[in-house]
């Protein structure tokens, strides 16, 4: 396999005016590039080589878009020549483009197979060494996709030990990522072994050997993953498996620390899963309610429609603090703002109960706070005649809960409420009557009556 390492040392002195717009942190702006280019050549005609290769690139992209793998391969054949472009900016950008498009073609092309993909990946790794790690990683993912775990692992190990030139920060992250993927693969084997172990009897002669194996694996894996998850980023699968192993060996503090760090470190991007993991962990650990509430409070701010919000509501309801009760109401309103939750019977049931309780507790202001911003659109969104009809048809229980809420919020004159009352259901008859009474008593539309 040939290597272009000399390229890095060799002088890059082209005759032509060369411009490359590279700003810090490895970012570049293609639009700025073309702008600078036209200034540099003083409005002169672009070389036909540049014109045809960029046309070629768009033909490749178009063919990929249309899933014409054969055509894409044809144009790709010509596009390879950008590797020899005399414009050093384009020459350096070429390997990555070629890798991305080429691997896409090879992934789908009917005549392609794992072998061709491997050859291509190995070649591209050595074109302009800068992409070695990235390509190795993607190559490994491709192998994983084809169920070739061993090859993937070998690939990652090779990449891990690869050394070339100076260490840069971007490479550091890549190395960590490669190690973490290796760790994930190890976790996978570990997890399989664990399953085996759980199936075995403790007295089985093989038990000890397997158990030993499980232990060894976990040690290697944790070392591989822990480095990555300290770097800010979204590392859900890694964190999850890492925590699982820590918990398995009883290192609860360690697990909690990892999760807390993952959820609360400000350098990490906002990630709802981080809070979900932490909450689930705390739940498993039977942590105090206040702690769990504080975790879910953050999740509520990020994803108010999350299904955990109903659990959050029950936690709040059980709390003694009054402000928690108010928040509980808010959370329910928040959940039902989302179209995906409109048919969630539990949410409606909770809301009906909560509203009644709140109104009975003389907290009309809380309800009005929530209602004011919604009274313009909820009637059409939830309580239209159409919904009344279709809800009743699909799920009478849901319709009843909704009708009760509608009655409380809009008064007994509202279409939804009236439609459900008229239905005269035999089993639900009693319930509906009770509902009618409550609505008369508590509805916020004529509050004076309730006093």
């Amino acid at each position, binding site marked *: 396999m*040939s*290597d*272009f390492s*000399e*390229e890095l040392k*060799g*002088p890059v*002195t*082209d*005759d032509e005016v060369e411009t490359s717009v590279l700003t810090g942190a490895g970012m570049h702006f293609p639009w700025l590039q073309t702008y600078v280019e036209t200034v540099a050549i003083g409005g002169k*005609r672009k*070389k*036909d*080589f*540049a014109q*045809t*290769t960029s*046309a*070629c690139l768009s*033909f490749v992209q178009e063919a990929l878009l249309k899933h014409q*793998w*054969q055509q894409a*391969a*044809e*144009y*790709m*054949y*010509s596009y*390879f*020549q950008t*590797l*020899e472009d*005399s414009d050093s900016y384009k020459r350096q950008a070429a390997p990555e483009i*070629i890798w991305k498009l*080429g691997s896409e*073609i*090879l992934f789908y*092309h009917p*005549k*392609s197979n794992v072998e*061709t993909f491997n*050859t*291509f990946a190995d*070649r591209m790794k*050595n*074109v302009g060494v800068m992409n070695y790690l990235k390509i190795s990683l993607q190559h490994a993912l491709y192998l994983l996709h084809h169920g070739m775990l061993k090859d993937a692992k070998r690939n990652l190990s090779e990449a891990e030990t690869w050394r070339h030139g100076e260490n840069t920060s971007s490479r550091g992250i890549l190395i960590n990522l490669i190690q973490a993927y290796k760790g994930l693969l190890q976790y996978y084997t570990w997890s399989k072994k664990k399953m085996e172990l759980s199936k075995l009897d403790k007295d089985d002669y093989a038990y000890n050997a397997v158990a030993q194996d499980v232990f060894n694996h976990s040690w290697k894996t944790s070392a591989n993953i822990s480095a990555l998850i300290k770097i800010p980023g979204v590392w859900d699968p890694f964190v999850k498996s890492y925590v699982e192993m820590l918990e398995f060996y009883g290192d609860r503090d360690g697990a909690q620390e990892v999760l807390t760090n993952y959820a609360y470190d400000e350098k990490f991007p906002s990630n709802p899963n981080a809070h979900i993991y932490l909450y689930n962990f705390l739940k498993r650990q039977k942590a105090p309610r206040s702690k769990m509430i504080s975790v879910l409070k953050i999740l509520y701010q990020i994803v108010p429609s999350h299904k955990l919000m109903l659990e959050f509501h029950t936690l709040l309801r059980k709390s003694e603090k009054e402000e928690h009760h108010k928040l509980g109401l808010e959370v329910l309103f928040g959940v039902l703002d989302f179209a995906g939750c409109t048919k969630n019977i539990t949410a409606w049931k909770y809301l009906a109960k909560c509203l009644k309780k709140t109104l009975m507790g003389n907290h009309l202001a809380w309800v009005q706070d929530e209602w004011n911003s919604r009274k313009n659109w909820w009637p059409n969104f939830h309580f239209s005649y159409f919904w009344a009809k279709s809800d009743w048809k699909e799920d009478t229980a849901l319709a009843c809960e909704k009708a009760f809420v509608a009655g409380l919020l809009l008064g007994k004159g509202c279409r939804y409420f009236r439609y459900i009352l008229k239905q005269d259901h035999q089993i639900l008859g009693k319930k509906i009557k009770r509902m009618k009474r409550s609505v008369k008593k508590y509805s916020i539309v004529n509050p004076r009556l309730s006093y």
Partner: protein
Amino acid sequence: MDLEEAEEFKERCSQCAAVSWGLTDEGKYYCTSCHNVTERSQEVINTDLIPNTQIKALNRGLKKKNNSEKGWDWYVCEGFQNILCQQAEALKNLGIGPELKNDVLHNFWKRYLQKSKQAYCKNPVYTTGRKPTVLEDNRSHSDWASEPELLSDVSCPPFLESGAESQSDIHTRKPFPVSKASQSETSVCSGSLDGVEYSQRKEKGIVKMTVPQTLAFCYLSLLWQREAITLSDLLRFVEEDHIPYINAFQHFPEQMKLYGRDRGIFGIESWPDYEDIYKKTIEVGTFLDLPRFPDITEDCYLHPNILCMKYLMEVNLPDEMHNLTCHVVKMTGMGEVDFLTFDPIAKMAKTVKYDVQAVAIIVVVLKLLFLLDDNLEWSLSNLAEKHNEKNKKDKPWFDFRKWYQIMKKAFDEKKQKWEEARAKYLWKSEKPLYYSFVDKPVAYKKREMVVNLQKQFSTLVDSTATAGKKSPSSFQFNWTEEDTDRTCFHGHSLQGVLKEKGQSLLTKNSLYWLSTQKFCRCYCTHVTTYEESNYSLSYQFILNLFSFLLRIKTSLLHEEVSLVEKKLFEKKYSVTKKKSRSKKARRH
């Protein structure tokens, strides 16, 4: 002299297929165009036949190897000579007579070398650090001095310019500071001996040789021979790879190494541009101080009457239109010999863009017949359609709409194919160009990598899709009567758009609009720029169609159309600049 000696050896060179042999001083034949040395040696070695031993030494110097890596010593102009030779050979394969290469181009080139003081003169520019040994004595028995006799056969070995090597007086003359210092230093920066110096040379009044310039030489020779190839044809053949141009250097002999500055001189990454080569042709013609070219008469391919016929056929227009184009040619005087013939020594050297002009004439005729205002052409088409439906047996009237529909489809397909072919074009040569020996392995590895990747992907490509390149043709469209999808309009009549008046025929359409209202007042021939959206859609389509055929910019054709109109309506231009009416009668 060498060539004379080697004349009895008539075999083709194994490398470049030329029959042009010289003798080395070991008595072996070598090819003067590619420097390939054969194993054959002259059978009778007669020292009396070798008049100038100094030239022998010179040849040895040429092939002397500095070391095996660096290859031969060679000069930039030899590289261009090789390219010209390849191009001439290719033209010969296209059916051009051998005189073009052997006589015309050869002489133009020698004349260039002399005018640019690279050879055949007393003080060649090259001889920095070399003794200026040029054949003063030889000039007497060559008829080179008698200039107008261009076609006379001057047999000189083409490599005289290299001068004999003599390291002794390196320090005696230093007109060019870069090349002098030492032989080894220059060869770091270029494979040729004078690459560095050449790329820096800027001498006033001397036309420097470039790769596009080789095409100017080719075109000049074609023009001299009055061959049936227009400039746009020539450039199209270059684009279709029938004539060596891009990467022509890869066919240099093995021992002529290129790197460093040679890359900038011989590496080409653009196809030739019509206007550029046109300008260069005039430039070279003037620089060479060539006499008036042979007359372009009515029986020449380049005469507008013949070219118009050709282009009418190409774009599937009725043959009857030819009468009208001939009439326009006559009225405008564009068929005159003096107008058409290139005369570089005339006060204002200019040649005619024969192909563009012929096409412009057709556009003008189309405007005369159909007005092309997005209105009249369609109502005339309605008439023609009705007439054709009623009289199915008669010769059909030309239906502009039908023609447009067929041409639009054919044109779009052709253009799409052309764009795809361009996008697939492989620019890089098998012989990579590098800057220095340090870069060499990198360049070669990169090449290898590209070849490997291409090999891999070629297995994924449908083999039937990549058929070999098409054979060269001066026609791009093919219209035959048999093809039912693509109606052939050649035999259609123009009766629907002409009307009789006494003995003459008038165009039914009596209106005309000028492509350009105003010309620059200054001396330049610039016409107001072509802003597409200002013109009717039919006019745009026709310009696009023709400019695609010639591979030129639409604005260039528009300009030419305006120039033809200027000649046709000269009086109207001077009197009124408003819409001019044209009533042109034509005897039938």
